[in-house]
């Protein structure tokens, strides 16, 4: 179970998160939606300690994350993986080395064993052929697949996906969607997905939370979102440029 309690975070005078509380039970897929700059990425980065809140607490099962030192966060990060928005593979390593790195570092495997294991994981995402290439040589969709393979190497119980389908073509987005669904159905993995891809939101999500002006505007099932009469939420899920919504001026 993941639980955000009253998180507040400001960058300079700009309050990005203003008293955000959210709870995600085990095995659920929570989509966090909202406009660009609404603080979605900022919120999920708190969970693995990449950003520290100004106030509030975060619990990962029984562990209180926000008070942990950088060293003490490492066990948390092994249980809770993160797929970055721009995939963020290591430029200086081949795809195989990228996936093998956490295996070498945390599972105590030798370089050779880690390579074998990493190859198996690349096969699972259909990237075995490209294993010797560098991240710069392949397209965004393929990089995303490798990033997901790398995040799953330590068999995490929780996975954060930061805009996993943004910038992908519809087919690649579709395969990422089904992978997230499968992780939850087959392995009971709890996922938090930051997204504004309307198509995948309604197809994959168990639950949706919309962030607006630093607060949770609406938290409910996809059905709740379809039925809502809130004008701001309606404007967002219908994708209309004009309406009551106020857009942040700074990203």
């Amino acid at each position, binding site marked *: 179970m993941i639980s955000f309690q009253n998180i507040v975070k400001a960058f300079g005078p700009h309050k990005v998160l203003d008293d955000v509380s959210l709870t995600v039970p085990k095995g659920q897929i929570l989509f966090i939606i909202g406009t660009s700059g609404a603080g979605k990425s900022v919120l999920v*980065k708190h969970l*693995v*300690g*990449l950003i520290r809140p100004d106030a509030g607490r975060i619990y990962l099962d029984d562990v209180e994350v926000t008070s942990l030192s*950088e*060293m003490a*966060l*490492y*066990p948390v*990060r*092994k249980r809770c*993986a*993160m797929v*970055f928005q*721009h995939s*963020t*593979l*290591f*430029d*200086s390593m081949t795809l195989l*080395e990228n996936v093998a*790195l*956490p295996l070498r*570092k*945390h599972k105590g495997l030798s*370089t050779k064993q880690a390579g074998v294991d990493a190859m198996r994981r690349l096969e699972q995402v259909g990237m075995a052929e490209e294993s010797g290439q560098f991240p710069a040589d392949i397209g965004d969709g393929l990089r995303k697949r490798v990033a997901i393979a*790398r995040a799953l190497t*330590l068999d995490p119980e929780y996975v954060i996906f930061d805009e996993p389908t943004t910038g992908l073509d519809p087919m690649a987005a579709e395969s990422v969607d089904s992978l997230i669904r499968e992780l939850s159905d087959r392995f009971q993995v709890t996922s938090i997905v930051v997204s504004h891809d309307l198509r995948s939101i309604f197809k994959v999500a168990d639950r949706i939370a919309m962030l607006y002006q630093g607060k949770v505007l609406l938290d409910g099932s996809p059905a709740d979102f379809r039925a809502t009469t809130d004008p701001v939420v309606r404007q967002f899920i219908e994708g209309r440029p004009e309406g009551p919504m106020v857009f942040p001026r700074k990203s």
Partner: protein
Amino acid sequence: MNVLAWAGSAIASGIRDVGRSAISVLEELGALTILSGRIFRSFIPPTLDGRETWRAFYKVGVKSYAIVVMTAMFTGAIMVIQAGQFVAKASATSFVGWAAGFAVLAEIGPVLIGLMFSGRVGANNTAELGTMVVTEQVDALRALAIEPMHYLVAPRVLAMVVMLFLLTALGDLFALLGGAITSELLLDVPMRVFIQQVVDANLVDEYLLGLVKGSVFGLSIAIVSCHFGLTVSGGAVGVGRAVNNAVVVAAIGIFVTDLAVGLTWNFL
């Protein structure tokens, strides 16, 4: 009155500028000290990532040896010309080997090699780490529960210290070779005689002093370049600015530690 007011405000803003830059210097010094502490701690336990360390050594060596060797040869040549101008007047060519050898080994060789190394390897290190910060690769390491200090920074620091030591040891010899060639061509002192002069001058102490300087320069270049790389913000523009700052501060570091090592060496 206007002129007075203007002069007053100009002086006030001048004082404010000096104060502000003094504060920022102190801030940078503090940050560098903290980073040094964290780097030293990351060597305990001394288990560096094998691949990353090998890659660091390889890149540092391959990138810098050519420019270091060429710079060293020119440096030796220049020192012989400068020494030659004194001894030609006094017609005391027997001093050339001693004078040029002393200047090269104790002082100019390590400093110029260090400056070139900073421009090549230090700047490159800042650019590389800076790019990794800007593209979130450092955060990705942390998210994979891999400590960037231990995994990324420690191997680079080790590689820079060891390689600048070795490059100084090698570069000094090439500097003497460059000096020998120049002395034959310009001063009519045969190469063999020049080298004999250097050997007779017994400059072992100076050579060792140069090697100590090389290692200390390597350490200061490493810490400075890692600091500016890890604190990059603001995309491509930020990376450029960080490299600029890194080479400037590393140059100051080289001269200041040069003075410090020179003084300690002579008083010990």
